[in-house]
């Protein structure tokens, strides 16, 4: 037998009141209140996105996008209005945007069952050579400064677009482009140096 509606609504009403108060304080510049609010809404956002994107690996990425969007439009919250509809509208909107973006990206991808083989000018690489090369690339990546490495990891390894990487890191698109360019130059110099020693 379920609880009477009035009883089940009481925790929700208390939570709503608490979040409204925290959001109002956050808008006034209270960083502790803001941090508390975002931490408390995080599980709710994860559940909400996971429900819509069942089995998807990008739930956490979408949740982070929602947090970023909430941050950029926090001035639009009216303290005289309920907090949950405001939050869930942003969450729903960003989830739809992420789904559309993934769909258009997938439409341009081709699934290849058999990877094309490549051969160097001499003999084909054996498995040990491939492992050695991967380790060498890891070392090339590891020797980069943090900012450059983060840029390469987000854009070249995780495949984020410039805009997505900019949102994730808080850096401008121009700054990310410079970081990637310098990172690739640095890795190339490291690899060339390594090949000379070999």
């Amino acid at each position: 037998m379920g609880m009477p509606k009035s009883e089940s609504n009481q925790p929700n009403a208390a939570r709503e009141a608490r979040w409204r108060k925290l959001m109002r304080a956050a808008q006034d510049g209270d960083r502790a209140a803001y941090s508390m609010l975002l931490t408390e809404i995080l599980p709710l956002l994860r559940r909400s996105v996971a429900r819509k994107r069942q089995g998807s690996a990008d739930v956490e990425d979408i949740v982070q996008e929602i947090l970023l969007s909430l941050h950029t439009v926090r001035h639009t919250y009216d303290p005289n209005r309920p907090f949950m509809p405001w939050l869930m509208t942003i969450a729903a909107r960003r989830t739809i945007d992420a789904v559309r973006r993934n769909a258009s990206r997938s439409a341009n991808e081709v699934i290849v069952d058999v990877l094309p083989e490549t051969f160097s000018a001499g003999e084909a690489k054996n498995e040990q050579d491939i492992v050695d090369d991967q380790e060498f690339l890891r070392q090339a990546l590891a020797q980069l400064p943090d900012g450059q490495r983060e840029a390469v990891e987000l854009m070249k390894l995780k495949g984020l677009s410039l805009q997505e990487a900019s949102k994730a890191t808080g850096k401008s698109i121009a700054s990310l482009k410079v970081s990637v360019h310098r990172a690739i130059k640095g890795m190339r110099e490291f690899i060339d140096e390594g090949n000379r020693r070999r």
Partner: protein
Amino acid sequence: MKSEDLISRLAADASPVKRLSHPIWRAAMWFCVSTAYAVVLLVGTGWQKNLSTQFSDSRLLWGFSAAMLTAMMAAAAAFCSTCPGRPLWERLAPFPFLLFWVASTIEGCRQDLALKGSLPVDAGLQLALPGKLLLVSAAPAVLILLMVRRGAPIAPYLTTGLSMLAATAIGAAAMLLAQPHLSNITLLIWQILPVIIFSGIASLFGPRLLYWSTISDLREQGH
């Protein structure tokens, strides 16, 4: 990056924000500024008519009122659509007035047909009307688009379409006063239809005009 780390970064970045004014207040501000602009434009182009004389023509009165109400409600709907969590029905507010505007003009066409046996066409004027409408509506359109950008881009297509509807409706209302003798069929085809078409075309540019800012964009804007 972990979400918990992102939260720490966002909290560290959080400065006090200036809350957005109520959407109705913002719509009212836009409406007043745009109306004043339309009046200045009318006076600048030599309009010196007596309003009470003009509004004694019921056809003009209905058309003008419908256009102004459409503009007002479209502006209010546009601003409401940038506030997350507001009721969805607010976005539909201008459509009954737009429908009334179209219906009253169609009724005028029907009366013209019944009275004169044919629909009077204003030769030579038609093709210039949509262009004039765009020119008159340009400044109100730019102003409202700048204002709605302060909100959240949760419905970019709809917000842009409603903004353009508001601007072109006010432009059409001003043109009604400037050229009160245009026939109903001319108004329907060369003024009201372009209002709807321009709004539809503008809405397609929604995502390009209204998009989510990044943190670095906000830093540059001084938030």
